[in-house]
Each structure stands twice: as C-alpha cells, then as structure tokens.
C-alpha cells in the first residue's frame, strides 16, 4: 500500500507522467453585496490521468467551486486551466459545452435528471449529442443500464417514478454514455441512504478501475476512502494531500491513514 501525506502545501507538485487536468494560479472570486469573496486562491493543481481524486474540506472551503471550475461548468476569475495540453479557461460558454460533452461526465448530489423525460431519454439526450447513430447509443445505454443494475422496465420510467438510488444510477449511466475521460461527482451519495450510496460508490470505483479518471467532492469519510488521492481544501487553498493507493474494501490501515490526515487537517 502506498500512503503519503503532505500538509500545509499551497502547491501540490506531482511527479507522475500524465496529468489530465492542471491549473495555474487558479482564482475564483465572488462579489456578494459589493464584498469580494475569494473562494479559490492561486491554486496550482494537477489531476493525474486514471486517478480517483477526492476533494474534501469544510463547508464553504470552495470544494464544489473547484470541481465546477475544473470541469468547465464555471469559469475562473483568474488563472489557467488545462485539460491535457488544451487550455480551456479562455473558452466561451459554447466551447465549454462542446468540451464537456466530449470529455466530461457528471454525477450530482441532487441527481438532476430531466423530470419530463424517461430515464432512457435522459441518457439518449446526452448520447445523441455526440453520436448520430441512434441504435448504437441505445444499445450502449442498455448495456450501461444493465451494468448499473437497472432493468428495461426501470429505464422506461420517469425520474419521479424511481427511488433516489435508481435515479442516481441512471445519472451515472448518463454520465458514462459518451465514454468521458473524466467523471466529476459532487457529493454523489449525499441524498441517498447508505445501501444506495454504497452501490453508487461501487459503480464509481468500477468506472475508475476501467481506466477513467474520477474527481469527487465529498464530506463523507466512507466515500473518500474510494479515492487513491485525497486533497484537503480550506479557505480556497489546498492544505494537504493524502495518497492512499488502490481501493480495497476491507483495509483498516488505509482508513486510519485518511482519518489521521483529516484529523491533522482539522476536519
């Protein structure tokens, strides 16, 4: 097991070969009632290809802001974001949309399926953005549904007719339909009960084990254990990093490492 911790670092310098995302002095500032609130401050960060990166931190630390900035859902105030070698921080909203459809998958805490569409349609809407081959997309969607444990009866249902866990699994299928190189998950188990949450985490782990990068924001220790790299964010800066190695279901030492890291971070 490879475990390493590094605390109080503004810059995480990574020596691995391939980075899927990197940032250069990334800043995000919000203006609220005339007051400037600096949510992300000069972040230099690298996300390695194939990693399951977990971002943790207290409420208001900028976790979700960072996730959405990295994924091109939001634009930074200052600094650069590179996806592989491509600088995406200067893109307009339409270019970002095209970037997202080609490269990113999203899983949200609130699930965010379109209420007025069946689960299959929710997936097809995303799939048909990239492929014109309806049959191929439908077949791939069916296979993915099967993989996440949803039957054809389930995928014909509307979101309101599904349980939270079923809907979130459907959302994961939507996130995977375009075979994204990176999957972003924002508190994916936050709205689910423990068994449904566990199933969703299993799926994300599987996705990562299949070679896709995952970046997940979470508050939950159990969820964070799924990652091989945990970043701790506080007041807009990364305070520490914990490298956990590959996930194993029963690995107490791993759990302890993370627990002590978080404790050191003041969590």
């Amino acid at each position, binding site marked *: 097991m490879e475990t390493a911790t590094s605390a109080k670092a503004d810059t995480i310098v990574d020596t691995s070969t391939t980075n899927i995302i990197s940032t250069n002095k990334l800043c995000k500032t919000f203006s609220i009632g005339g007051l400037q609130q600096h949510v992300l401050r000069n972040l230099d960060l690298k996300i390695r290809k194939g990693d399951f990166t977990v971002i943790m931190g207290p409420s208001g630390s900028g976790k979700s802001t960072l996730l959405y900035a990295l994924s091109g859902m939001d634009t930074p105030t200052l600094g650069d974001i590179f996806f592989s070698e491509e600088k995406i921080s200067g893109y307009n909203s339409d270019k970002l949309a095209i970037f997202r459809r080609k490269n990113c998958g999203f899983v949200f805490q609130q699930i965010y399926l379109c209420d*007025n569409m069946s689960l299959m349609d929710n997936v097809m809407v995303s799939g048909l953005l990239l492929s014109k081959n309806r049959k191929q997309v439908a077949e791939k969607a069916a296979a993915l549904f099967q993989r996440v444990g949803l039957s054809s009866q389930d995928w014909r249902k509307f979101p309101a007719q599904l349980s939270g866990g079923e809907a979130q699994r459907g959302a994961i299928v939507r996130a995977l339909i375009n075979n994204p190189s990176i999957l972003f998950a924002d508190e994916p188990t936050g709205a689910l009960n423990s068994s449904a949450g566990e199933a969703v985490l299993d799926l994300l782990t599987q996705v990562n084990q299949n070679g896709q990068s995952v970046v997940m924001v979470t508050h939950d220790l159990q969820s964070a254990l799924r990652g091989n790299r945990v970043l701790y964010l506080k007041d807009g800066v990364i305070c520490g990093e914990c490298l956990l190695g590959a996930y194993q279901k029963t690995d107490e030492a791993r759990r302890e490492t993370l627990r002590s890291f978080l404790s050191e971070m003041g969590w």
Partner: protein
Amino acid sequence: MRSTLTIIKANLQKGIGQAVSLMAFALIAALLLSIGLLLMLGFDSFFDERSEALHAPHYLLIEEKALFSQDQVDYLKNHADVTEVETEQIIFMTAEFLYNDGKMPSDFIFVDTNAKRSMNDLTLIEGAAPKTDRDVCLPYMFKAGGGYQLGDNFTLTVGTQKYSFTICGFTEEIMLGSPNNQMYQAYLSSQGYKALNTKAPEFEGMIIRVRTQDPTDSEALYHDCIKQFFFKTDIAGADRAHIQSLSYYGSKVVRTMIPGIISAVMVVFAAIIILVSLLVVRFRIHNSIEETITNIGALKALGYTGNKLLWATVLQFSLVAFVGALLGIGVSYLAIPFVSNVMEMQTALQWQGGFDPLSSGLTLAAILVAVFIVTLFSARRIRSLQPLAALRQGLSTHSFKRNHLPLDRSRGPLALLLAVKSAIQAKGQMVMIVIIITAVGFAATAGLSIYVNLGINPEAFSKLIGGEVPDATFFLKDPADAKDLRRYLEDQDETRKVFYYQDLNVMTRDMRVNNIVAEDFSLFEGVLLYEGRYPKHDNELCISGYLSGMIDVHINDTLKVTQGSRTEEYLVVGLIQTMNNGGMACAMTIPGMQRIMPDYQPSQLYVYLDDGTQAAALLKRVEAKFTDELALSINVSELMGAQLGMYGDIFFSVAVAMLAITILVIILVLYLMLKTVILRQRRTLGIQKAVGFTTFQLMNQFALYYLPVITLGVALGGLAGILGFNSVFIAVIRYMGLMTASMPAPVELTLAMCAALVLVAYAFALLISGRIRKISAYTLVSE
C-alpha cells in the same frame, strides 16, 4: 386583508416582467375597445352635436331658379314636421375641379358670405372670410381629402368655361361638405358673388333650408318632398342638374360610414385581443400555481385558507388588468386625434372626442369582468390543493404515463425530437397558442383582404358599389345631339363600345327608385344582375333585391311604376344589386321608360375603351368638337381613382394598424409563453447545458418547440380568414343591397403573409429564447 395584500405584493414583485406584459395586453385591448366605443357611441352624437351647434338644416332643396316657386316654401312651412324654413339665392352649377390629383364633377353652390342666413352659416375651421372677388371659402373636405391649402388656386370647369378663385378659408359644413353627397357649398365675398352671377347668369338658383322638430324626421320629409316636387318636372335628367335634395339623415349615414366601419373593426379586434389576454391569463395562472406550488403548500400548512389564496390570485390579476385597462383608456384619448386625422379624409369633421364616461366605463368593465371571471375559474385549483401535495411540488397531480417519441426509437434531428416531445407534453398550452394565433391570423387576413380589395385594388369592388363603370361618360344638353356624338365616339380608334345609359328617378309604391335606363343590357360589364335576366321588352323591368324584399315583389310578379302623371305596369324579369339610393333601384329599356315618359330620349352615353388606353385624350377631342352640345363629360376612370384613393388611404391605415397589432400580439404571446417556460425549465436547461448542449442548440430547440403550433395557428387563421371573413362580409353587405359582392382574401398574398408571420414568430422566439444564455450549468448546482 393585509396578509392577502402581502401575498399579492410578493407575487407581483417576483414576476414583474410578466405582470408588465399582461398589462400590455390589457392596455392594447382597452386602447382598441375604447377607440372603437368612442367612435361608435361618440362620433354619432358628435355629428348631431356639431349639427346643433351650427344650427344645420335637416333638409335641403336646391334647384335652378326657374324651378323655384313659393308653393314649395308654403308646402314646407305647412308640413307637420317642419319648424323653420329659409330661402336664399345661390349660384348652382355642376362643374369639374381637381380633387386629390384627379378631375371630379360635383354640384357647386356659391353663396354670398354677407347674405343673411340662420342655418349652418359660415363657420371657419381655418383661414378667413372672403374679402376680394377672387377669394373663396371651401368646405374643409377640400383640405382633408382634396389636397388643397390656404392660398391655393381653385378652378371650376363648366364645359369650356373656367372659373378661378383663391382659397382663403376652409369651412365646417354638415350637409354640403362631403364627397359622398357630391354637393359642396362655397362662400364668396359680395362683390365676388355678384361678379360670378354676372359672368354666369344661367346658373342662378335657389336653396331652401329646412329644420324639422327631430332630425330623424328628415328622411320622411325627404320622401314627401320627392313626391311633391320632383315628379312634377317631366325633364329628362331633371334631378341631376336642376334640382337636388338632401336629408340630414342621409348625410349623416354617409358621413359617419367610415367611422362606423373603423369602430366595428376596432371592436372586433379588441374582442380578439381580449380573448388572447384571457387565454394568456389562464396560462399564467396555471404556471403561477406550478411555480409557487410549494409556497401555496407552505401557506396552507401555516393556516391560510384556500379561499384566501384564491382571492389573492384573482385580485392580483384583476389589479394588473385594471391598471393596464386604465392606461389603455388614457392612451385611447391621446390616440383619438390621429384616428380622427385618418377619418377626416372622408368625414371632413374635426372630431376631438372628449372624455366619454360611457365608453370608458364599458371598456373598463368589459376587461375587468372578463379577467375576473377567467382568473376565478383558472385559479380554482388553488382551493382544492392539499397542503402536503403542494409541498411535494404537486407530484400527485403530475402524470407521465406515456413517453411520447422515445429518443432511442424515434428518428429525426435531436432538437426537433426534443421540441416535439415538449410540445406533446404541454398539449393544453399548445392548443391555447393555436387558438390565439388562429384568432390573430384571422384578423390579419381580414386586414389584408380589406386593404387589397379596398386599398390597393379597388376597381373590382368599385364596380359593385358604383354599378356599371365605363371609362368615360358624356351628358348632352339636348338629347337630339346624342346620335351625332354616338357616331363620332364609335368612329374613334380606341373605342370598344358605346351605348345609351341613364339614371332617372321613378316612383313605385310611393317610394323613389333609381331607374337605370339602357338601350342594351347585354353590353353591361358590371355585375348588376344576380338573378333572372335583364329586361328586353318595353313591359319588362328588373328590380333590386333590396326593393324586392321590401315590397315583396319577385320575378314574374308585376309592378306599377310612375313617372310624373303616368303609371304603367311592368313584369319583373330579374333582380339587380346596387348600393346607390340605399339599394332602391330598378332597370328598364329605353322603350320601357318611354311608356311612362313618352318624350324621353336618352342624353347620356357610356363609352368603353380598349384596354390600356386613357380616356383623357378622347375627352379632350370630344370636348373640343362638341363644345356647345355637351353638358358634362366625365373621365370615369380618373374620377374613380380620385374617390377611391381617399378610401385606399383610410383602409391602408386600418390594415397597417391591424397587421402591426397582429405582430405585436404574436410577440407578446411568445414573450409571455417562452419566458414562463424558460423559467419553469431552467433546471432542465441547466442539466442540458451541463451535459454539453450549447446555448444556440437550446434556443433553437425552444424556437422549434413553438414553430409547429405557430405554423398551425397561422395556417388555421389564414384559412379561416380566406373562407370565413368573406362569408361574414357577404352577410353584412347583403343587407346593404349588394347580393354578389365579396371581399375575397388574396390567396397568394395571404400565404406570403402567413409565411412571413411564421418567420417573424420564429425569429422572435429565437430572440426571446436568448434568455437561455443567462442560464448556466453552474447556476443549476449553485442555486
């Protein structure tokens, strides 16, 4: 009450944009309805008020001096309905003059400004009373419709004689100031009057002005006088050049005709806008309930009763409608001078239309009551909504039983499929939009039909109204010269055909009927006959459908006709249509006329020219050759152009206003619908943006979402306009005596207009959908 007001205030603040657009609907509806009602109720009484203010006569008898007798004055003075009689010496001529860039013949009455008169004396709208012998004051119509200004030269032509004046003022005339009556009164200075009288003594005439107890008695007096005075003169064409009469009632009908048409159009259009507004209100309420359903649930959970929440909604919408309607009524008063300006071309009356509590009250009440009732019915659901169901976003009331067009199995572009899916899911809303667009599409087609038939291409319609329309017509002083003129006309290269034609007044069943006398009806090109056949023999006649219905005489019945002291019986062989003389008409051959007027000889010729040739050159040659023989020559094409040009301008204004309002309504409807739907679907839009849809893809999807229903609505509206408007028009015009008149919608132009409306709607839908730009994937998660 305070809590209800708090809810209303909060709702209004939240949806200020939609409240403003709803207010705009109420404003437009109130504006149109108010103008329509002000015209309908106000113009009529305005005409009466002006008439009273000017102490206008209710009946006029105008004749050449030789025909005047004291018996006429005595008869009128002794008539039961008459209260005042006054006589005045005048100069009475039928002359030609330039009007609206065309030559127009009319009867002209010149009076001495300084002569004593009590009825409708000189009342200046502009300028000053005549001072020099060249000065003339003309009715205001010459400025409003004829294109004259103060200081302009004004020339009258009678045969080869020309009489020139300088316009020094424009006057207000009730009876003798409208082109519809074809009689104008002009004021000269005393020396100017004497000079003209010396120059043209043959035109000396008399006018008898009469006032009755009640202006509505004027029509009865008019008919009494026709019987009493007109048929004692066995002169061919007597009532054309030598003696004329006018009733107040008849003048009022023609001078208030355009305001009547405009007010009817406005009221119908307002009704359509109100209908649209009500449908939008209904839509807004349904959406408002869905948007605020959790608030409703929370308020109900707190103890608010369903009734309280219902009344808050009703009051909220009624308040918006009230403010909009008040503003609309206010704007209508500001718009009245512009409407009046348009109508002035025909009415020559400067109507200012002061505050009218009745029309304003009716407008406000109509809009408020309609909005109140619709709001009450649409918001009923609030009362029955259970707090728990409301807190759960009304999920128990939602049903997605069927997934239309599943994307994994349906073919077609994604944007289109998504648009159609959304449209199917919002069936109710779509049906409503179709109804709205159908209504405005119908109105736009009606506007286009009016403009094309009466504005751009009025010739076909004018043939219906005017009866038989030649290219030129010539009146001879002596019928004995008619044969020579006819021969000459037939020899001209451009002449296609020539025949005798004349309108003469006859009596039947104690009513004056306009009798069309012609040598050969088979040569007619107009659409006079609509049933049976034209008369061929001297004992046959046709009667108008209107007269037939009135006296219950039909084809194969016989009818007695009187001229002067002779009465003969004729067989009715056909039914004709005309609007002239209130639709009271008949037609017979020259031998037929000679049975009741043995010395009758035709003195008028109708000339038809080859296509593409102008009548002006022929008129010039004829006038030069038959200078002494001609009483009057008319370039009918030019005359029609001048008269119809005036109506063209009015109907152009009406049509443009209708089209502009149509487009405005479509834009407003789209704005309201799209804004609401975008607001409702911002979550879905955020999700779609997150998964990679671009803003334009979503905008296009939204525009496409509305395109099929707008296309359907415009198509149905256009179709209803093409098929339905003409039927409505035909039904109305039949009452006016025209049995085959029609106002066909120009099919190609209607199709082009419909296509343009769809394109405009699509472009605006795209523009309004630009709001999607503001929705970002990030706002979805950050809200």
